[in-house]
């Protein structure tokens, strides 16, 4: 890896680049899935290549190749520099980056069991056992399960002298029960929807999830949803489970704090942000108990946004995003930090693969735990709805107005969990919502969830992000709009 990386840097500088950084990445991926008692996907993939980013004539260029020969790397360098020079044809000013130190380091996330050393037939057997448990429940028309493992080895080398070697091992799994009856399709997922739980861990995560043990419960809940009450319409108190709150954080805090979005760089596709620059350190984002951080450090937990250095060679950091309700921080890179006069990037440049340009991405965007027990939160609620496991999500392109629905909910009446509610939904305006938060559960109920499928950028990049959350309560929230006919 190192020889190709060094060659790329050396040749880029020789061709007139004033800055260059290169990522050599070797990615291994295993994916297995089952459906109704049969194996669906079963496969492994590997991909090795190099991506080079340069500044020449004051503008950016990027090119990538998997042809790791001298000729291939030199051609890639020529391409990157030619592209940078073409960029200069529509330049307004030279690229300026916040300063950063060179680092020489190596890092690997800790894990206990290498998932690639676990026989694939063992993994299939777990999924098929969970599948069988779900299909034992009368009314289940579809049982599905999946596991996904990824090992990413990468070497970052830059022209300021950094040489950073990192290895990340990622594991994830989930199961879904679906029931079609009458004119209705109901679904329950465990431990989360849209692929389950994903973390920077080994196969021990899958064992801890106990997919087989949870399969009967979600299957029974799925069938019961057909006869559950519809979501009422109006304003109500809601309590969100930690996985739904994790997605709420992702969409209504994680994306709007991306500084490239704020500065208009994503305006054509992902959109912009309501968090314009004058709001930093002045906007009351949430209530006093809302504290949110962007924390890529391992100390925060083995999330999908955990690393030692970002893909621009900046060390992992913890940035306060919301401090006692006040908006206090953006996600930055070296270029955008300089653009708003900050002395240093807070280290959020990430790339999907060797053939993609690093862009600002969420790391682990987490709400810090409060002090409530979940049982006390329910007991303390006179009239409300408890909502669990995301079913659909949508938010406008400046991240003001959102609508979420969950797979399942329960009425709360006079401090007790009551009848089941099908497809509960809620909607609102981001800052109004976070300012209505009046209780957050404690560390005992806090989970670092992984969102493996966050899309951003052109060409599109898919990235894993982490979101630590505990169940929380919100007052006076609009519910039931998604199923309203009026």
């Amino acid at each position: 890896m190192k020889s190709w990386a060094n060659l790329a840097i050396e040749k880029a500088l020789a061709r007139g680049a004033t800055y260059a950084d290169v990522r050599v990445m070797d990615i291994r991926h295993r994916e297995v899935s089952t459906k109704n008692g049969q194996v669906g996907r079963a496969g492994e993939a590997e991909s090795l290549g190099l991506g080079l980013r340069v500044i020449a004539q004051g503008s950016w260029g990027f090119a990538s190749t998997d042809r790791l020969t001298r000729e291939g790397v030199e051609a890639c360098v020529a391409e990157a520099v030619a592209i940078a020079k073409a960029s200069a044809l529509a330049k307004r000013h030279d690229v300026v980056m916040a300063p950063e130190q060179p680092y020489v380091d190596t890092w690997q996330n800790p894990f206990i069991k290498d998932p690639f050393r676990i026989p694939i037939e063992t993994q299939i057997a777990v999924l098929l056992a969970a599948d069988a448990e779900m299909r034992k429940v009368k009314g289940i028309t579809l049982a599905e399960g999946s596991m996904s493992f990824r090992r990413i080895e990468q070497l970052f080398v830059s022209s300021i002298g950094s040489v950073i070697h990192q290895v990340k091992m990622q594991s994830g799994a989930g199961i879904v029960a679906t029931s079609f009856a009458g004119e209705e399709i109901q679904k329950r997922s465990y431990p989360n929807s849209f692929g389950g739980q994903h973390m920077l861990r080994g196969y021990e995560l899958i064992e801890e999830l106990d997919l087989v043990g949870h399969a009967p419960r979600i299957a029974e809940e799925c069938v019961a949803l057909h006869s559950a009450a519809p979501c009422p319409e109006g304003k109500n108190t809601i309590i969100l489970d930690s996985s739904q709150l994790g997605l709420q954080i992702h969409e209504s805090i994680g994306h709007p704090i991306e500084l490239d979005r704020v500065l208009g760089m994503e305006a054509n596709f992902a959109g912009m942000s309501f968090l314009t620059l004058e709001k930093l350190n002045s906007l009351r984002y949430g209530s006093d108990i809302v504290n949110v951080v962007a924390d890529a450090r391992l100390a925060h937990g083995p999330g999908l946004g955990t690393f030692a250095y970002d893909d621009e060679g900046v060390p992992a950091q913890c940035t306060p995003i919301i401090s006692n309700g006040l908006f206090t921080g953006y996600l930055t890179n070296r270029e955008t930090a300089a653009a708003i006069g900050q002395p240093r990037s807070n280290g959020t440049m990430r790339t999907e693969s060797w053939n993609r340009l690093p862009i600002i991405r969420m790391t682990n965007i987490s709400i810090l735990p409060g002090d409530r027990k979940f049982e006390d939160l329910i007991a303390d609620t006179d009239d409300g709805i408890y909502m669990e496991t995301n079913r659909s999500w949508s938010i406008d392109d400046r991240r003001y107005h959102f609508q979420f629905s969950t797979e399942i909910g329960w009425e709360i009446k006079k401090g007790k969990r009551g009848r089941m509610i099908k497809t509960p939904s809620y909607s609102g305006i981001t800052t109004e919502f976070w300012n209505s938060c009046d209780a957050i559960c404690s560390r005992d109920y806090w989970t670092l969830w992984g969102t493996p499928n966050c899309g951003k950028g052109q060409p599109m990049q898919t990235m894993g992000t982490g979101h630590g959350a505990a169940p929380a309560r919100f007052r006076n929230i609009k519910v039931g709009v998604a199923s309203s006919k009026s």
Partner: protein
Amino acid sequence: MSKKTKSRTVRRAPARSRRGGHAIAASHRLGASELRRIAEKIIKFSEADETEVDVTAVTSALTRFANNTIHQNVAEQGLTISVRAVVDGRTARASTNKTDDESLRRVARAALDLARVQPRNPDLLPMLGPQKIQKVSRFVEATAAATPADRARAVARVCQMADKNKQTTAGIFSTGLSEIALANSRGLFEFYEDTRGEFSVTMLEKDSSGWAKATSARVGEIDCDALAQRASEKCASSRSPREVPPGRYTAILEPPAVLDLVGFLFYDFAGTCVADQRSCFTGRMGKKLFGENISIWDDVYHPLQLGPPFDGEGVPRKKVTLVERGVPQNLVYSRATAKKMKAQPTGHGFSLPTEDGEAPFNLVFAGGNSSAEEMIRSTERGLLITRLWYIREVDPYQKVLTGMTRDGTFLVENGRVAGAVRNFRFNQSIIDMLSNVEMLGPAVRASGEESFDMVVPAMKVRDFHFSEVTKF
């Protein structure tokens, strides 16, 4: 569900553009013979009962602009060599992007080793022999020959237009090529290549925005200046948006807005989706579901469509009538799904192994002859919608979708555009929407961000449910 793409190895001499500069896409074109050589080598190395090799090469360059300057400018090349092995009624897949002999031997062996430990697959059919494939011609030299300087010059003109109009622009201009070869140990070999150009532009002012986009195999057919002009005019027209109350309105949906909604139907037309009872067509085939004016085909041979004329197993794609005059008539089938559902394969299967079966990726809607002006003139009170955003499914059987309007939302009153309005959230059943279409424009190739490109018309739809309003 889509084919995976990664990198490549063997390289030809760099091509030069007639306009000068390095033609990135053209320089990485491998050609059928090179892809065939890789595939045949693997088939030779493989010890499986049957072996299938899918070699996909993609080369793409994308110039991205924002704040009236180029801020990202990238090129990528990728080759994926994907091998499926069959042994004793079991199958599995392994992929690599390394093309040395040892790596090719290793990927063939990995696929076989993975297949050996699978349970037997009762639905597995023998691989196909050679097939007769209808030729399509979608590789355009001029697109492959586009250079970074070509794209930068076009973008520079757009940035100048924005400066002149005191607007801020953002967008992309990309060009590229893809090559796909599918071969197996029973002698099947199929090859497809195409080129693609894409230009998408947003113009922004303090409280307004406008957007336009086009894609084509022929980059010369993409008029960047005209698209930028359209986005600029939309932006200027949508200044000072006022808030109007949510409710049911007549909606005039421009083709990209139609595309992003109806695109959510595509997998419902899969035989597997109906068999799994998660399609909105489950129990509704052959019954009147949409209006008389709705007919839908899957047609990869349509002149405005792109994509290979064969599926993941090499079955030639058929043109399939999915909906005729409002009645869902047919589904698409892979070989295995067709056998289970007592139907004929239509050439829409995914690469195996898969639990998803198949899907139509070349949807074509019947159009009409109403112009946008006629739709507006005939509307007493309604909303004109440029583009939609962040669409998600709320109810899969009633096909209720939620999402937002974006980049040009206008109130229509008494037959004319009465000004810009703040963006809405909608919660709308697509089944109801396609039952309420009052007017259709000509079907055009449309491109949005929520769905793959399709051939769809603009639609005037009554009683479209806009449920809430946002802040801008």
